């Protein structure tokens, strides 16, 4: 079964051998190749290269092609404020002082704004990895898009002029349907409708204003023969049931929702739930161990892998340490072996005696590669591959050894040496490369320094 088929199986509500894994690497994809957020979202080749790196390092079953809820708003005349380390923000709301519903002729066309770039990258990704990886096309949800256009007055309009809100949401729903069409035509397998603001309204308001538009959107996506997902942010717990009733194939939530409790509701409607690795406390600020532990603990709460997708809570922060996501990926793909690692790592009774080399008095340089498991973890495979190739080039001039975290004594070694992130390369006991695979030149230079 290809990773893509695994995800499809889950979206068809069947049992999967492991939990499908979908890293929401939006601007974070840029961090993998040293490009900033603005470059990732405005330069086609940069975006493509970054997404390919996500695919290579994180081994996703599915991945979004671009995570930018401002794409439609920009075309509709909102000014954007760009940032180096995050997606752009909407800086002006054209309808803030003008209570009108735009003419349908203003709806985005494929040659407007950044759509040509996005559609082209979608096609290139489909061509490059589409056989094995499910691709997500993300559209801005009608409520969030309406608030981009109208600003905060939208909330007040819900009391003052319900017809207006309905009409404006109707326009935004049309916009969403068009975007679905463009994205599906460009090869997307799953359309995710992303509406963070849904968590800010009551269930009554959701039912009054959004049940209709969402049902229409998901019907439309279904009629096109692809899967759908409904992304929310924030504490949307109370609205999960109403969201299920709009009939998406899946729902994705963040850490503000108790995903196990929410799953009881989504299961009732036979909807897949995805989430909800905490973005800030775990992915951004936690260690690799924290990330692996969080995932195996979460997965342990599931009686079986059915109607569940493992994913970050939302768009990953730009600066999430790469090793953290690698840890998450490994925990998703090799859950049992990572569970053992985590258990061994935290056990206090653990006292395997390991001998640390006398780095000051080595006969020749020693390259030590620490991996989660080079057989199963993609980043680890590449890291070991780089070291093996160096060993071939330098021959007997250097020594090279791999320590897999799957072995108890290697965990002890890591603890003793203070190795925090895997995979990494140490040369003569000093950390040289962590998570980011060095190029041949970089690695050779680091070795020559100590020859």
């Amino acid at each position, binding site marked *: 079964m290809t990773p893509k088929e695994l995800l499809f199986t889950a979206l068809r509500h069947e049992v999967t051998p492991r939990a499908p894994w979908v890293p929401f690497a939006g601007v974070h994809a840029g961090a993998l190749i040293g490009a900033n957020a603005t470059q990732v979202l405005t330069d086609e080749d940069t975006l493509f290269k970054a997404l390919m790196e996500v695919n290579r390092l994180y081994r996703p079953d599915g991945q979004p092609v671009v995570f930018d809820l401002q794409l439609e708003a920009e075309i509709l005349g909102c000014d954007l*404020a760009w*940032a180096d380390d995050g997606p752009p*923000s909407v800086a002006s709301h054209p309808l803030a002082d003008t209570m009108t519903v735009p003419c349908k002729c203003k709806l985005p066309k494929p040659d407007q704004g950044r759509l040509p770039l996005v559609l082209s990258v979608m096609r290139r990704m489909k061509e490059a990895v589409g056989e094995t990886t499910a691709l997500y096309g993300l559209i801005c949800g009608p409520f969030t898009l309406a608030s981009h256009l109208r600003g*905060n007055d939208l909330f007040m309009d819900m*009391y003052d002029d319900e017809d207006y809100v309905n009409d404006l949401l109707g326009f935004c729903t049309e916009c969403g349907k068009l975007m679905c069409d463009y994205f599906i035509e460009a090869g997307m397998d799953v359309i995710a409708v992303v509406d963070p603001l849904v968590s*800010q*309204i*009551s269930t009554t308001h959701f039912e009054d204003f959004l049940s209709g538009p969402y049902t229409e959107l998901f019907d439309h996506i279904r009629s096109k023969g692809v899967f759908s997902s409904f992304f929310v942010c924030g504490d949307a717990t109370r609205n999960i049931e109403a969201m299920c009733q709009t009939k998406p194939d899946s729902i994705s939530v963040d850490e503000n929702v108790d995903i196990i409790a929410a799953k009881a509701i989504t299961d009732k409607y036979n909807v897949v739930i995805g989430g909800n690795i905490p*973005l800030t406390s775990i992915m*951004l600020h936690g260690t690799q161990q924290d990330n692996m532990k969080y995932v195996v603990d979460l997965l342990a709460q599931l009686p079986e892998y059915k109607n569940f997708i493992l994913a970050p809570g939302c768009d990953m922060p730009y600066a999430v340490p790469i090793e953290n996501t690698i840890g998450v990926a490994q925990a998703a793909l090799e859950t049992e072996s990572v569970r053992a690692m985590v258990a061994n790592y935290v056990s206090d009774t653990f006292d395997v005696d390991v001998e640390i080399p006398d780095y000051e008095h080595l006969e020749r340089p020693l390259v030590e590669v620490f991996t989660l498991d080079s057989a199963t973890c993609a980043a680890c495979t590449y890291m070991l591959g780089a070291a093996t190739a160096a060993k071939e080039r330098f021959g007997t001039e250097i020594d090279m050894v791999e320590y897999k975290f799957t072995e108890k004594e290697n965990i002890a070694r890591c603890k003793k040496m203070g190795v925090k992130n895997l995979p990494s390369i140490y040369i003569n006991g000093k950390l040289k490369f962590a998570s980011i695979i060095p190029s041949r030149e970089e690695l050779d230079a680091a070795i020559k320094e100590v020859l």
Partner: protein
Amino acid sequence: MSILNDISENLQRGKAKVVKELVQQAIDEGISAKEILENGLLAGMSVIGEKFKNNEVFVPEVLVAARAMNMGTALLKPLLTGDGVEAQGKVVLGTIKGDLHDIGKNLVKMMMEGKGLEVIDLGTDVAPEKYVEVAQAEGCQIIACSSLLTTTMGMMEDVVKQAEAAGIRDKVKIMVGGAPVTEDFCKKIGADKYTADAASAADAALEICQSMA
């Protein structure tokens, strides 16, 4: 008094026009502005705040309630100056530099005003030195910073540093909040108070101001 109850009830339902009419009626009946404010408008806003905290009402409900409150206070303002009613404290508030999100910040403002605090709203994308400058010039007891982005929350540390540099750290308390902000983060950057929601922020701000009075 039932008219004050009516004001509170209608405010909670966001009936701005009715609130305005009732406030005028209460004034005409000779009820003091202070009483109308405290037992009518602020009482209603306080209920909304509590319900918001408990996830019983949400952003739209708070916004319309606050609008109703503003309609009422506009009528009372000219009467309040001579009525011995003073603000409970002064807060300078804004969304931190680099961040344009203002829903949460606006809610905090409304809730704080609902507690009788005076709030100076600097809007969004506010430079750390600006908070300090205004706090100094206006004699605020509290600087309150909001952030929705993981990338901008770090800026809040600069507010603490700037306040230290300006020598007002002992005179002003710094409050932080927003989706990615946590208690740990608040401690780490040396801020004084983190609250998880707007209503709690208003409660905490009132408490701080009273303790500093």
